[in-house]
């Protein structure tokens, strides 16, 4: 089947679901359509849209009349029109002004002729083509917007005496405005600018001397190459990308829990920038490494970068999973295409040609994934090792006789059955004490079981202690749940409605004879005779207080579970066991009657076998039917395969990224973005405004969710996608000059800025795509070798009068150090920097358990003399909801949102942080100690401090004042001042 015919199949399916008006004869339809377009629509636009349209931003009474869906779903009072029945249509009642509350339009009544237009239209079936696919929409925003136009290669203008293409473009505009560029900055300034820009660090005094000593041709270019070759480059530029995609090491939101595996993605980004991976490949890896580059699975950390409201996985899955997909859509489209797709969630984008359909097509791309920890093979060759065991597991699940009854598996099964022997023998544990924390009355029955009565609490925890006489060594403990006539529905639980129960956690502790300190007895695994759907025995051991084991709908009879100890437990005389049965689910899902027993039999004998296997084993080996042999073989194969796969998986790595759902969710277009108002089903796709790109994806298997992401990755990485290429070159330009050619790097649409130099932007985009082949390092080299980049930053009055904003780049923009540059610089100048790369993040706080899921972080208590304190800030743990106050004061962004550019503020609170924080004072002291080791003379020390911190000699004025200050207050106090100077904080 060709791709095209598959696609039309999809279209037909969609159309069939949509069109009611198909039944209308084509001819009549044409007439009705004309009536609508010529009379009805203009009338609605003139008289109603003012209060009932997205365009006006008003939806009085919740009603919009600018789409078919608007009136068919209707507002607060329900559908506004009943097609074919004017008398039942609220809209018609309103224009008839029959009822004061519903008289519309409120001020001026429609004329009789106008009312008739509407009545005729409704009576004829209210044909409204606006909601239909393939028919003209009401005025749509311009698809000819500059950023959507195809990229056309045009050469740079020829300007005499200018060789660099960037300068040629800039020169033309400057000349037109009568502004001249500034001369090159001195070599120190150029070196500082480059090193801070590419590495986020200051140059050393030695590197400055070296650079100044090499005035020859190409020295600057050699410096650029050397800087780009250094791994410090990736560390700096990774930070920009992590800001852009709002990556952090915790969830944010209500339960702001750590993501201890997120750092692998941060390391991935650093590594990819250093490796200079071509941009299209960088896109494909992050969106669909599983399809394109399985050796880079860690890249899928991109999908999980943003915040997560964990209610999406718990109490409110519908609302928050929807908003979480919204976050994925926004992040992807903003960071790769600088498009604000999210603006089309509740209505078609007001300004850009992005329809609501487009938006939900993008949501459908992510309908098969959730954010979460993701295991992956760091080495894709491991996947091959897994294959035979996966095949065996599948055979076991399917009870595939040809495989399982083959000789080798039969041998294995028989060996297992022989090894196992008979069933385990159990010794009932006679309790000495038993307590209900929920306040129930517990009674010990003759058979050693405990029966609960009296008060029936919502949640429970039973704690039972016993001094076991038998066995001497225990391999497993069994929990029996027993029915009893006193319990609701005979139990074994106390849930009044059905007799169910939920066991959330099971712990077992050993008190050696005479000891008051218990030892926890770790549980290896648990098995049960029956599991309620979704409430399996494994939940008892998962550590999650919200999950549990239940037995519904098999109440009223006995059930049991066996917990295997990790190590056999030696029970010496006088030692006591304490067992705790936690039942925290609530609504009286608590145990009614139970009994505990121990065994010393082997784990194979003790564990609960599936019913078929139990039956088979009770039949003598030579009398077993084929089904019985198969049941045993399948069980053994499954055990063996699971063990092997677990062993292989332990070699896997984890990154916070995405988890796949078994089948992608169905995503509907939502009327006004409201999950209560689903419209048609959305088909995976992207923005339709660029006709050269397919806007709805051809997928051979729509249930293969990876193919959806892969299709979007292809769409974004396409050479034909003008947004992608404009977006990235503009972003890079922004970081070098402090401002993009278009100054809204995440939005190249109408709400964004106008490009100051559109021809330059396009030329750069084409050059980056075709000449540089997507190499960012080549793009950096091109930009930083321009005269524009090398200019002085001083504000010249002559130029400022014409172009105060410096849009023409007649000077370089001075830029304040950001938090990372500031702190890494200080680490470097006082010799504390540790250039170790990668690994788990550094926590610049003392972490203690919080009240609930979110921990307490005390940043003030961090000790800056710790060995890990010298690591660069790219390696710090960024807690989304509890930011580092120092970094926050230095404008580290709130990573609840995408941050394409940072703000740079100046405030008294920031000054207090820079003047008084432990970080600054500790390092001022460090620097002073180092200086004193170099020289005993204070003037020497001050001069050396200037060389390190500002990469220059102090002037006479500075030297004398600072020396006097150092003599009065110490050298450390002097270093503190230097760390607060404007000259240190700004890169000219």
């Amino acid at each position, binding site marked *: 089947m060709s791709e095209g015919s598959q696609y039309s199949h999809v279209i037909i399916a969609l159309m069939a679901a949509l069109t009611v008006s198909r039944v209308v004869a084509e001819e009549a339809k044409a007439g009705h359509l004309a009536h609508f377009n010529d009379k009805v629509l203009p009338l609605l636009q003139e008289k109603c849209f003012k209060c009932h349209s997205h365009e006006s*931003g008003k939806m009085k009474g919740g009603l919009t009349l600018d789409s078919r869906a608007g009136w068919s779903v209707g507002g607060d009072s329900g559908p506004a029109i009943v097609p074919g029945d004017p008398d039942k249509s609220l809209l018609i009642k309103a224009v008839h002004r029959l009822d004061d509350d519903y008289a519309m339009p409120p001020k001026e009544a429609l004329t009789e002729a106008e009312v008739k237009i509407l009545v005729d239209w409704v009576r004829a079936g209210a044909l409204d083509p606006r909601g239909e696919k393939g028919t003209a929409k009401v005025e749509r925003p311009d698809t000819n917007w500059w950023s959507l136009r195809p990229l056309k290669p045009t050469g740079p203008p020829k300007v005499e005496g200018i060789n660099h293409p960037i300068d040629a473009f800039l020169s033309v505009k400057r000349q037109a405005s009568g502004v001249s560029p500034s001369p090159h900055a001195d070599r120190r300034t150029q070196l500082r600018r480059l090193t801070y820009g590419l590495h986020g660090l200051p140059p050393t005094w030695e590197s400055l001397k070296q650079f100044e000593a090499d005035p020859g041709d190409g020295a600057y270019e050699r410096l650029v190459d050397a800087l780009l070759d250094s791994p410090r480059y990736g560390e700096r530029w990774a930070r920009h990308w992590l800001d852009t995609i709002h990556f952090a090491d915790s969830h944010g*939101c*209500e339960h*702001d829990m750590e993501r201890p595996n997120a750092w692998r993605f941060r390391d991935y980004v650093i590594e990819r920038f250093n490796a200079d991976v071509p941009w299209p490949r960088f896109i494909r890896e992050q969106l669909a490494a599983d399809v394109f580059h399985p050796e880079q699975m860690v890249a899928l950390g991109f999908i999980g970068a943003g915040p997560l409201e964990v209610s999406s996985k718990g*109490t*409110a899955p*519908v*609302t928050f999973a929807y*908003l979480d997909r919204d976050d994925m859509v*926004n992040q992807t489209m903003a960071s790769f295409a600088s498009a*604000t797709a*999210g603006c089309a969630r509740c209505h078609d984008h007001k300004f*850009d040609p992005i329809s609501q359909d487009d938006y939900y097509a993008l949501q459908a791309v992510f309908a098969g994934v959730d954010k979460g920890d993701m295991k992956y093979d760091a080495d894709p060759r491991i996947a091959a090792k897994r294959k035979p065991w996966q095949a065996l597991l599948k055979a076991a699940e399917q009870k595939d006789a040809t495989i399982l009854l083959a000789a080798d598996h039969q041998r294995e099964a028989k060996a297992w059955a022989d090894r196992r022997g008979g069933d385990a023998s159990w010794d009932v544990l006679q309790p000495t004490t038993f307590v209900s924390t929920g306040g129930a009355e517990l009674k010990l029955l003759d058979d050693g079981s405990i029966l609960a009565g009296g008060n029936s609490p*919502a949640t429970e925890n039973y704690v039972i202690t016993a001094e076991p006489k038998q066995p001497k060594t225990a391999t497993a403990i069994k929990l029996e749940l027993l029915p009893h006539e006193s319990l609701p529905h005979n139990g074994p639980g106390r849930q009044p409605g059905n007799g169910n129960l939920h066991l959330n956690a099971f712990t077992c502790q050993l008190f050696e004879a005479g000891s008051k300190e218990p030892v926890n007895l770790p549980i290896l695994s648990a098995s049960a005779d029956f599991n309620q759907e979704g409430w399996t025995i494994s939940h008892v051991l998962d550590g999650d207080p919200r999950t549990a084991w239940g037995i519904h709908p098999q109440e009223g009879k006995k059930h049991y579970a066996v917990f295997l100890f990790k190590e056999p437990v030696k029970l010496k005389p006088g030692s006591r066991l304490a067992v705790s049965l936690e039942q925290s689910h609530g*609504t009286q899902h608590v145990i009614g009657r139970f009994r505990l027993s121990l065994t010393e039999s082997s784990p194979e004998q003790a564990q609960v076998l599936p019913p078929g296997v139990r039956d088979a084993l009770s039949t003598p080996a030579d009398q077993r039917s084929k089904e019985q042999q198969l049941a045993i073989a399948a069980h053994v194969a499954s055990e063996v395969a699971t063990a092997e796969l677990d062993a292989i998986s332990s070699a896997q790595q984890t990154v916070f990224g995405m988890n796949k759902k078994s089948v992608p969710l169905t995503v509907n277009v939502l009327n006004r973005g409201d999950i209560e108002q689903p419209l048609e089903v959305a088909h995976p796709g992207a923005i339709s405004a660029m006709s050269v790109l397919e806007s709805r994806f051809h997928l051979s298997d729509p249930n293969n969710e990876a193919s959806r992401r892969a299709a979007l990755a292809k769409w974004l990485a396409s050479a034909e996608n003008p947004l992608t290429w404009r977006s990235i070159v503009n972003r890079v330009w922004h970081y070098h000059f*402090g401002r993009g050619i278009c100054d*809204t790097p995440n939005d190249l649409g109408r*709400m964004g800025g106008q490009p100051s130099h559109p021809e330059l932007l396009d030329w750069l985009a084409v050059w980056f795509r075709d000449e540089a082949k997507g190499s960012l390092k080549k793009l950096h080299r091109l930009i930083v070798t321009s005269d524009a980049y090398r200019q002085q930053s001083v*504000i010249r*009055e002559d130029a400022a009068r014409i172009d105060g*904003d*410096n849009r023409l780049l007649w000077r370089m923009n001075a830029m304040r150090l950001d938090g990372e540059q500031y702190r890494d610089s200080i680490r470097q100048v006082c010799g504390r920097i540790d250039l170790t790369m990668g690994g788990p993040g550094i926590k610049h706080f003392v972490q203690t358990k*919080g*009240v*609930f*899921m*979110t921990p*307490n972080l005390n940043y*003030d208590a961090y000790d800056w003399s710790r060995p890990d304190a010298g690591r660069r800030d790219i390696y710090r743990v960024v807690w*989304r*909801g509890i930011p580092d106050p120092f970094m*926050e*004061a230095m404008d580290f962004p*709130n*990573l*609840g949102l995408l941050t394409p550019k940072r*703000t740079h*503020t*100046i*405030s*008294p*609170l*920031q*000054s*207090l942080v820079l*003047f*008084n*924080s432990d970080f600054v*004072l500790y390092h001022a*002291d460090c620097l002073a100690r180092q200086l004193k080791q170099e020289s005993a003379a204070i003037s020497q020390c001050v001069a050396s401090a200037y060389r390190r911190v500002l990469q220059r000699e102090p002037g006479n004025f500075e030297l004398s004042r600072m020396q006097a*200050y150092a003599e*009065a*207050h*110490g050298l*450390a106090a002097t270093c*503190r001042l230097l760390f*607060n*100077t*404007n000259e240190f904080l*700004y890169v000219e």
Partner: protein
Amino acid sequence: MTPLQPDLSCRRRFLSKSGGGFGALALGDLLASETFTPRPEFNGGLHHPAKVKRVIQLFMTGGVSPMDTFDYKPALEKLHGQKLGPKNKPEGFTAAVGAMMKSPFEFRQHGNSGRWVSNVFPHQAEIVDELTFLMAMTSKTNVHGPSTLMMNTGFLLTGFPCMGSWISYGLGSLRDNLPTFVVLPDPKGLPYNAKAAFSSGFLPAQHQGTMINFTGKGEAISNLFPDKRYPFAGGAADDDGLKLLAELNRHHAESDPANSQLDSRIQSYELAAKMQLAAPEAFDLSRESETTRKAYGLDNKVTEDFARRCILARRLVERGTRFVQVWSGPDGPVNNWDNHNNIEKELPPMAASVDQPIAALVRDLKARGLFDDTLLIWTTEFGRTPFAQGSVGRDHNGGTFVTWMAGAGLKPGVAYGESDDWGYKTASGKTYCYDLHATILHLMGINHEKLSVRQNGIDRRLTDVHGHVVEDILA
């Protein structure tokens, strides 16, 4: 009370407006935003005359039960024990829906206004005639975190600026020697979403809530002074150091005289020094009279903490802080207003910890004439179910809940809106956070539709695309 005016020569002024370094975030940011200028003819408002200049917001974390405090529901007494609630668990409920449950507390009418108040709030009951109630507040979710964000930022997810930040951004400071927006968290812990509930989101960092640790232990504001571990910092080293720093910075600025950012940074250290003088005085509660201390309950273990923070809130607004937020309760399911297990046992201690301090604060603000331009808000993130959770607790309910306000620009002793007979949903006068925020901004002389900032392609507002001023409660 006029904002600090920069003393700039004409030439400087021109250049600072036209090219103070890239990004144009220069001196203007030191004060407020460049886009919004409080207007003297509007009494410091932006778009119309302001009645309110300062705000204290009391936030009860966890979801205060309305039908056990201010929203008397006699119908529940008749329906007690009946299974009438939704069959399927609505989103955000944490457990299955139980039987209808009457309030275990006694309700009586109080004041001339005859407001019903339960006996968990005996002190607030005495001042109901000063309060303006919104009886039918509603939320879009039954989940704490998002609902707390809604009530503070207008959005369900993190990243957006809270009301205090918006007000700081729009109106700037009243005085330059104290932070404009101060947050006093419960010493037991941060609220849901940690600091995201008082984040400045995408607004510049100086509009962030300044968190004050007011437990009597450790420094109240981090970094206000250097730690004593560093003998070379503090005292004369600071006085001389700040002078020398200004000198060095001015010397450096000569190389780029038109760069206003350099000036701004010089000024920012001067303001920091002013703050070092003003803050310790503001934090010193020993300056309060014995009568005041007693009235707030500073002498009682139960009320001591909230009393201390309420007095500080008053001292701060008195001294020119614009917006103070006082939190009752940390996140999590216990030790706050999230009374899932047992309303009768869990609600009274929470109520007792805030009731007397709140009533004292209302009386104190009024007595000192601060209600002339101060607004006090008491609120929470959502209400609780009229059905039991388990047998005696109540689950989350965004359907309807109570907020009250007091102070300038409001009709005292009135109530707007009503919940339904069960107190499950709103019946009339439904009020979203958008409407509450629109009303507060309106009182401060701000049109909520005009206070916006473009962010990633959208003109963002505190009220999103919603919000109506609740005219009925305005004086």
